[in-house]
């Protein structure tokens, strides 16, 4: 044959990269995302006639490590049934040897795109929901380890989904599969650095795997909060919450995500926060803001009373 045309070559490169879904109920519609480990496709589940998302190991003839990591992620997700965590429907190996899992097709925007278009209170409410999902995972012994704006999706009604659990660490629970011992369930050896610069706690950056715990995610949540606060005039109590979450030493951070979320909820309710000791004036100001209406009513009453006294005292 006389050489492949550019169009035919591009097409062949594309179709040769497509996962072989023969024997599965899935049909690929389009690629919607690519990461270091896998490609995510929008796909059709012909059996149930619904759209799903398929995550498939990217590398052709990929390493066992990639395959195992993808399947670990599927098993982690299967453990976490929470509205803030994408549900997984199915997982396995394709005829071409690539691992995959099928999950709910998430509609929405990434947190970084969402944050650019909404007000600060809306961003903080989204942050609270992220905290809820992460706290739920922690309660099930799972540390995310890669929390960042790109790994959070926000739906059309403000619902939040925490994605990409491929480097999660499993602690304090039975292993994910019968053959998986405690060390392997952590997924990484000492010195291995997994995560994203700017969103990795200091101990994670140093590859101190054994020191990684819930507070590592607390640090990343602090970094997420900083991202959401960027460009806004940040009140001191809110800044104090961020700083405590991102303390260099794990013992200086919030010990639990719930405590970080509770402090934020107190701030949003106009209550004093644990991370910030306020002065008398600040306390009075916060009191005035929180009780604006009753204070205005009392003031109106006092002014009326004063005017009446003046009137009748003439």
């Amino acid at each position, binding site marked *: 044959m006389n050489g492949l045309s550019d169009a035919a070559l591009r097409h062949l490169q594309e179709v040769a990269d497509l996962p072989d879904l023969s024997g599965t109920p899935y049909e690929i519609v389009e690629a919607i995302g690519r990461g270091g480990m896998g*490609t995510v496709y929008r796909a059709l589940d012909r059996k149930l006639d619904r759209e799903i998302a398929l995550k498939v190991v990217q*590398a*052709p003839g990929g390493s066992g490590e990639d395959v195992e990591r993808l399947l670990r992620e599927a098993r982690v997700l299967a453990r976490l049934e929470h509205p803030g965590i994408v549900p997984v429907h199915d997982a396995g190996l394709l005829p071409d040897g690539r691992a995959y899992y099928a999950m709910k097709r998430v509609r929405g925007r990434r947190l970084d795109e969402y944050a650019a278009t909404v007000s600060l209170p809306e961003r903080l409410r989204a942050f609270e929901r992220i905290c809820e999902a992460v706290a739920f995972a922690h309660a099930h012994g799972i540390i995310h380890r890669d929390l960042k704006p790109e790994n959070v999706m926000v739906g059309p009604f403000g619902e939040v989904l925490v994605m990409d659990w491929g480097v999660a660490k499993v602690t304090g629970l039975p292993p994910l599969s019968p053959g998986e011992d405690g060390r392997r369930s952590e997924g990484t050896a000492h010195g291995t650095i997994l995560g994203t610069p700017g969103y990795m706690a200091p101990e994670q950056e140093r590859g101190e795997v054994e020191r990684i715990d819930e507070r590592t995610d607390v640090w990343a949540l602090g970094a997420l909060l900083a991202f959401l606060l960027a460009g806004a005039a940040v009140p001191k109590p809110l800044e104090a919450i961020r700083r405590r979450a991102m303390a260099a030493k794990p013992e200086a951070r919030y010990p639990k995500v719930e405590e970080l979320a509770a402090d934020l909820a107190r701030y949003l309710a106009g209550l004093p926060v644990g991370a910030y000791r306020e002065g008398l004036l600040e306390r009075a100001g916060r009191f005035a803001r929180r009780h604006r209406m009753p204070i205005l009513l009392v003031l109106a009453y006092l002014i009326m009373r004063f005017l009446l006294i003046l009137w009748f005292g003439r």
Partner: protein
Amino acid sequence: MPSETGPWSPGDRFPLTRRSVVIAARDADPEVRRQAWEALAASYWKPIYKVLRSRWRLEREAAEDLTQEFFASALAKGTFERYDPAKARFRTYLRTCLDGFAANERKAARRLKRGGGQEPLSLDFEGAEEELRRHGAGEGLDVEEYFHREWVRSLFGLAVEDLRQWAERTGKRVCFQLFESYDLEGPDAPERPSYAGLAAEHGLPVTQVTNHLSAARRELRRLVLERLRELTASEEEFRSEARLVLGVDPG
């Protein structure tokens, strides 16, 4: 479906059994070295010829001679044997060697037959010229990008030929015909053939058309990877090239 719920066996991948000819080019046995050299020439001669024609702006006859001489010189001087996988991809090494070789030839301005009376390779230069006419000379691409693109074209061209032979061997002619109509000719056709149209043409149900196409693509993928395995020296290089060739960002 091989496994819906496990147990999963991550190591259970398609076999990639071909030996690396890049490694074989350094074998102690001269016959093994010669076979490796032939395999490398078969995969790389077209991109080399096209670079000489389009980037070195050589006339057709001069480019044909220099392509032959490059491979003859490589065999005689052990160019492929000196390749160090730790330093660069083989593809990059080869192109650098070609640049040096072409520059020396230009400087010497001579066309002496080299390689100790080496028989010239049987290469389809007319076909390469036709490709240059049809696909252009990579205007807007630098030499590295152009060499890579032409190497990928050559790689897929060889894999498609392998696929044709596989279809002949295994009695899957319809499978290849469908692949040819949909995946090879379809992208350039004014109106892309539909699954339903192909099904009617071959008297098959649509599902069988898609199954045949899946099988051909799966085989093509395996053949491309086999060729790549041959043309790379290490697992790392193989994976990196595979990702590039299949259009995936190596990350």
